[in-house]
């Protein structure tokens, strides 16, 4: 079972700053292998660490790293810094590769080309900055969560279990697990100024 590291999720191993957005742009525009190697150097070991903490074997974790980084190379031009930060984008790729490799199943996603798709309302000027700022705020909000909320957030991502199984394991009512998660999410939403 995953445990919460002392010092909170962002504790001692806070990532050294790299400019993932700029590196991805150089990969997309110039097919720059040096930038790609920098991305690999930062994210490769973290993807592996994340996967192993989620219960993946070392072989599977390495495979997810490979598949994810190949996709980063081939899809860098599809990365949109107005929609997601670099870590978030790479997380979503790694998550989907893992589902693909373990379950050989789909993770259905909304398709923007679906005629029924309802586009986002036009953004106000404040929101047109890149999501890098959001990533910093999310990091800050997570690092400030009370331990019992941080624990549920971590378990929700690291344990491949429904919330009911997390509740059973912690010997808590399901309602408590969900309300802690909702409180944590509320703080993250507040931190990026998302209303409603």
């Amino acid at each position: 079972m995953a445990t919460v590291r002392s010092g909170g999720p962002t504790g001692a191993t806070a990532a050294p700053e790299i400019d993932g957005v700029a590196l991805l742009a150089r990969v997309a525009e110039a097919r720059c292998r040096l930038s790609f190697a920098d991305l690999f150097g930062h994210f490769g070991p973290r993807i592996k660490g994340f996967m192993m903490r989620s219960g993946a074997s070392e072989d599977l974790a390495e495979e997810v790293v490979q598949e994810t980084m190949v996709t980063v190379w081939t899809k860098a031009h599809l990365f949109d810094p107005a929609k997601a930060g670099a870590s978030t984008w790479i997380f979503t790729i790694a998550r989907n590769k893992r589902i693909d490799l373990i379950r050989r199943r789909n993770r259905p996603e909304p398709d923007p080309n679906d005629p029924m798709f309802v586009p986002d309302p036009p953004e106000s000027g404040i929101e047109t900055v890149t999501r890098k700022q959001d990533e910093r705020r999310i990091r800050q909000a997570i690092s400030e969560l009370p331990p019992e909320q941080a624990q549920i957030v971590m378990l929700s991502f690291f344990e491949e279990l429904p919330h009911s199984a997390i509740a059973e394991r912690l010997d808590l009512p399901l309602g408590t697990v969900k309300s802690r998660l909702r409180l944590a999410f509320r703080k993250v939403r507040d931190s990026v100024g998302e209303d409603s």
Partner: protein
Amino acid sequence: MSIRHHPAETTLIAYAAGHLDEALSAIVASHLAVCPRCRGRSRLADGIGGELLDSAEPATLRDDALDAVLARIAGAGPETAEPAPRAGRHGVAAPLGQLLPERLSDIRWRTVGPGIRQARLGETGRDPEGLKLLKIAPGRSVPRHTHRGHEMTLIVSGSYTDELGRFQAGDIADLDGEVDHQPVSDTGEDCICIIATDAPLRFEGWVPRLMQPFVRI
């Protein structure tokens, strides 16, 4: 279409974490296609994943890991192939809408109880385990039940009322094991919905329990 009932935030987090099974994910994805509000929250939940990735304890990679990737990307240009567009149907966005037949009247229903009929989703294509179509005749109800697991319902047409409120076309009912309910179709038209579960329902009373092996909802 104004949506009054949305997936729970905890469900959006489980979807972001990649821990919802395929049937439940299909309901969430079909909702996200038509709901910018939940899509914003879903992006935020992805952002939590991104932060947990960025702050993950780095694990040493095998010595040849970078070389192996560099070898694989050698000559690989940007991926340009557009995925085939997937279209929704009958007011239901893809990926669920694309599983519905061209005409709702083509659905082959099976009676599973008084006024309740059920059908498979996607007669020709894949039918993700745990996804079913349900049709409740006007005034009829699904027997009272709780859930062993997670149940999500997308209302396609008509409406029903239960202990949690009134659910109309486009609404999502997102229920866990702690809810006990009895949906009643509350208009003059059939209520058609798509139901995803990750575990069988738990009916109250002996008659519905006897019915369960046949119903499988």
